[in-house]
Structures are given as C-alpha cells and as structure tokens.
C-alpha cells in the first residue's frame, strides 16, 4: 500500500474512531453514573444528523449557526427527557430499561419519519472547510474530516479535564460510586443527573451533526452506531472513559483498514475483535472509573 494512501486511511480511521468515542462516551456516562442502559442513545445521534439537515434552512444555510442551534436544542431535549422519562428508569431492572428505551427508539424513528420523511439526504460541507490539503504528490485530504477529528479530540480532552480537575467532575465520579454519599454532602443528585444526561445527549447530537456532511443522513443510522458503541464499551470496559477512548480508536482502525484489505468481511471484523477481547479479557481492557 502506498504510504499516502495508508496515511489517508489512518486519518479516516482516527476520525471515525473519535466520532465513535463521542457517542460511546455519552453512553458510558449515562450508564456509569445513572445506572441506565440507554438503547435510545443511538437515536440522539440520528436526531443530530437530521437536525444538521433540517435546521440548515432556518440558520440561513450556515453550518456553524446550525451547530449552535442544534446543541442548544439537544441540551433542552436531554433535560426534558430526563425529567419526563429517564428519571422513572433509575430503580428499574435492566430488562425494563432495555425495553422502555427500545420503545423510545421506535417512537423517535416514527417522529423523525413524520417530520422529515424517510428519504436519504446529503448535507453540504460548509464552504469554509470544503478545501483539501495535499498529501504526498497526487493525493489530497479533505479539510472537513480534519475538522471533525479536531473537534472530537478537543472535546475528549475537555471532558478529561472536567472529570479529573473540576468539582463537577469530582461530584460526577463520586455520584457514580456512591449515591447516598453524594446526597449527604448536600449535592442535588437530581440536578446532577439531569446535567449528565443532557451532556450525554448533546455529545451524541453533536457527533451526529458533524458526521452528517460525511456520512449523509438516513433512517436507521442511529441503530447502527448504537451497536458499534456497545462493542466499544464492551472492549473498553464498562464505565471506563479511558477504555472507551482506546477501544473507539481501535475499532476505527479495524473497521477502516478492514474495508481496504478485507472488504468482504469488513462488517464482521469489529465483532471478531470483540470476540477475541472477550476470550482474553472478559471484563474489557480497562477498569471502571479509569
């Protein structure tokens, strides 16, 4: 393989992996802290992508204004959903959480179908980022993909900082370990949960919005990414933020290079990887909380 092609694939792998990380991160946060297994998390990604498409006319076609719009809506959506729906799931068994959030997926997909239909849509790459930079003699790499990687990387670093260095991060980490203790410290756990949930939703929505110009927008896109995110979480170790990061990058690599080298089996490769990890380390690569 030519080096510049290899480099392009590597950058693609990185970009895909980082995007997965954003979505998987929200999933991990919501499970790790609130104890909810949320199947509808993929729907937030889908909603984000459709927002990038549907809100664009309102924002005068400016991608960045759409982005801000979408994020504000995502936080509101997350906050309201936690209040109206997810707060009823805390004390329930996993099976009930699974089914109720599964029901929510069906509802979201139909609402999407009612509002914007079932067609596949493209979202244009914003003019500012539509260029390419040269790689080697003949190859070029689109600036927009670098932008996506950059945004994800910044967010990943920002989250890491929030978790390890701030009071909010400390509260969140303590809340995931011991609910009563946090409550006894006078922290409003209900509010904390709402913030965490809204943040998780916003991450998934943002991932969907910035992915839209690359992947196009189609029904069922949320389910696909949800299941891949489960693989990320299983490989990384449940509740582990660091684990999710490395697992997402690993899957980005396996998936991208799988498509190049083994196109026939590319859909299956990430699952084979998961099987191997389960054989080797059944509880994932990293411990919870790390």
């Amino acid at each position, binding site marked *: 393989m030519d080096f510049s092609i290899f480099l392009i694939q590597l950058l693609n792998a990185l970009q895909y992996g980082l995007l997965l990380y954003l979505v998987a991160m929200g999933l991990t946060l919501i499970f790790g802290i609130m104890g909810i297994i949320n199947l509808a998390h993929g729907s937030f990604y889908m909603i984000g992508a459709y927002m990038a498409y549907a809100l664009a006319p309102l924002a005068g076609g400016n991608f960045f204004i759409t982005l801000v719009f979408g994020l504000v809506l995502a936080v509101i959506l997350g906050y309201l959903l936690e209040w109206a729906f997810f707060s009823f799931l805390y004390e329930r068994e996993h099976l009930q959480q699974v089914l*109720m959030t599964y029901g929510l997926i069906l509802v979201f997909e139909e*609402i999407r179908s009612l509002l914007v239909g079932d067609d596949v849509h493209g979202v244009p790459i914003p003019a500012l980022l539509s260029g390419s930079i040269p790689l080697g003699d003949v190859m070029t790499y689109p600036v927009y993909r670098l932008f996506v990687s950059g945004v994800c990387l910044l967010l990943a670093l920002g989250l890491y900082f929030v978790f390890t260095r701030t009071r909010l991060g400390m509260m969140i980490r303590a809340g995931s370990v011991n609910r009563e203790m946090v409550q006894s410290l006078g922290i409003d756990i209900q509010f904390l949960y709402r913030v965490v949930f809204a943040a998780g939703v916003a991450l998934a929505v943002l991932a969907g919005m910035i992915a839209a110009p690359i992947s196009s927008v189609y029904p069922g896109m949320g389910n696909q990414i949800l299941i891949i995110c489960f693989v990320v979480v299983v490989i990384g170790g449940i509740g582990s933020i660091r684990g999710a990061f490395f697992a997402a990058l690993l899957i980005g690599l396996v998936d991208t290079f799988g498509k190049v080298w083994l196109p026939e089996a590319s859909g299956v490769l990430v699952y084979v990887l998961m099987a191997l990890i389960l054989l080797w380390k059944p509880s994932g690569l990293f411990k919870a909380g790390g």
Partner: protein
Amino acid sequence: MGIDKGKAVFVGLIFLALALYPLVGDSYGIGLINKVMIYAILALSLELLVGSTGLICFGQAAFFGIGAYAAVLLSPEDAAASIWLLLPACVLAAALYALFVGALSLRTKGVYFIMVTLAFAQMAYYVVHDTALGGGSDGIYLYYVPGMDTWLDLGKPLILYFFTLLFLVWTFVFLAILLRSHLGRALAGIRINEQRMLASGFTTYPYKLAAFVTSGGIAGLAGFLFVVQDGFVNPEMLSWHLSGSLLMMIILGGLGHLRGALIGAFAFVFLQEFFKSTAIFGDFAKHWHLGLGLTIILSVAILPKGLIGLPEWVQMRLFGYRNPRQVERADAREDRHS
C-alpha cells in the same frame, strides 16, 4: 412444585382452541395463527433464558435466522429436502452458533451480557447481509417445500398448521419437563441468587451454557418452520427489531412463566396487526411503530408482571385487596432486594 391443575387446564385450553381454530378460520387467519405459533416457539426459547435463568439475551433473532438460512442453504436446489435431515440440521446450526455466542457472552455479566448478545446477533446479520453466502439484503427463496416422503405435504397450509402446533406443544412440554429437572432447578437458583449456587458447589457456567444452547436450538427450530411457511429468508429475520419484539412478548405475557411466553406472543402479534390496520388508522397505519413503541413503554411501566399479573393488578386497583399468597410472594421479593 407439583403441577398446578389450574395452569395445566389453562394451557390445555389454549392448545385445544388452537387445534379447533381451522374449523372456523379462513386461509388468512390460518396463516396468521401459524405465524404466531412460530413466534410463540421463539418466545418460549427466549423465556428459558430470560425468565427461567435470568439471562437477558438481546440476540435471539440470530438463532432464529440461522436456523432459517440453514433450511434454505442446505436444501437441494431442484428437489424437496427430507425434513428428517433438514430439521435436525437447522436446529444443530442454530445451536452451534448459540454455543459460540454463549461460550463467550457468558464470561460477562449483567449489562455486558445484553450488549454482547446484541453485538453477536448483529455479526450474524452482517454475515448473511454482506457475504455471498446469504444472498444480500433481498434474501433467498426456497423453491421446494421440504417434506417427509409423500405423505406429509407441508405445502398444504392445514397440514403445516398442525405440524407447527405439534412442535409448539412439544416445545412447551419439553421446557416444562426441563424446568422441573435438576437442570431447571439449578437455572432457577442461578436466576435468584448465583452467589448461593456457587457457594453450594454449583459450577454455574455449564448450566447457563446448556440453557443458552438449548434455547438457540429451539429458536433454530422456529426458523425452520418459518421457512417452510414463507418459502424465503432475508436478513431482517436476524435484525435486532425481532430480538426486541421477542423480549417484549415474554414480558408482555408475564416473565417467569412458560404460559406467559405463549400469551405474550399472541398479544404482541395482535397488537402489531392492530396498529398496522389501515381500516382503523387509515394512512397513519404506516407509522405503526409509533403506537407500538408507546405501548411497549406504557405496558412495561404499568404492567411489569405482564398479562398474567393483570387479574392481580385489577384486583388491587378496584378493591385494594391482595390475597395472602400474593402478599407472601411480594414480601419474599422485597426480601431479595433488601
């Protein structure tokens, strides 16, 4: 632990009604009930895992689909296959995949297990969807209905109906016997308190694996029956929507009871038909997932014990009355959580 007469009579009546249905049903109805019976077999297979063993498997559709694909792929192209060979082969194919998935996924627990079974089902989905083996997203047709020499013609709907009913009864009885056996009691123990089972000396992994493989094999049987009825397979048979629907069936009927899976399969399919009905919803019927989704959320929220718990629920609401036996059980449950 003896057989409860009331329950046995109840289940007997369901089977009797199913046996008598062709006397009144038209060909559409017979086809529909046939399909529901296949789903009931599938739901029973899942009940063995979820309700009896406490393992929440979100990938049951994979075993169903693999049984079905095996039926098509192993049939000769220009003649009818003998079911003597084909049926066991389908069950075996599904059970083998269940052995693979179970051996790996049972190394994990709780939420992990849910995710891993879902992911492995998706892996099977991609195999039939993307590779030459599975014929892509259109699936494959089966041109000759498998039979048994000449005297059992499964191409005739009525014969197929009773053939399916026979297997439904067989599955039910098989699982009822299994649940009373050493294996079944150990599975119940694992569901309630695995720690105690380990401390008593049970190596629990082989028990769970036995349940998983058995469940997969039964799902493969259902896949075979599905192919015989519809004559084709496609990747959607392995989709996680079916796995979700199956979970919904058993919780809708009443988790922890074999007859719950039976009732749940019927209730769920009729619910689905109801929301799909253009006669009632007109054009909106194409958005039938909306009604289904809301119903799933509401029924899990309001009726976590399923339709089996409905009489008790009504009693509570109307009269504020609980009969003593149920109070004992409720206390017992609270104790488990405390």
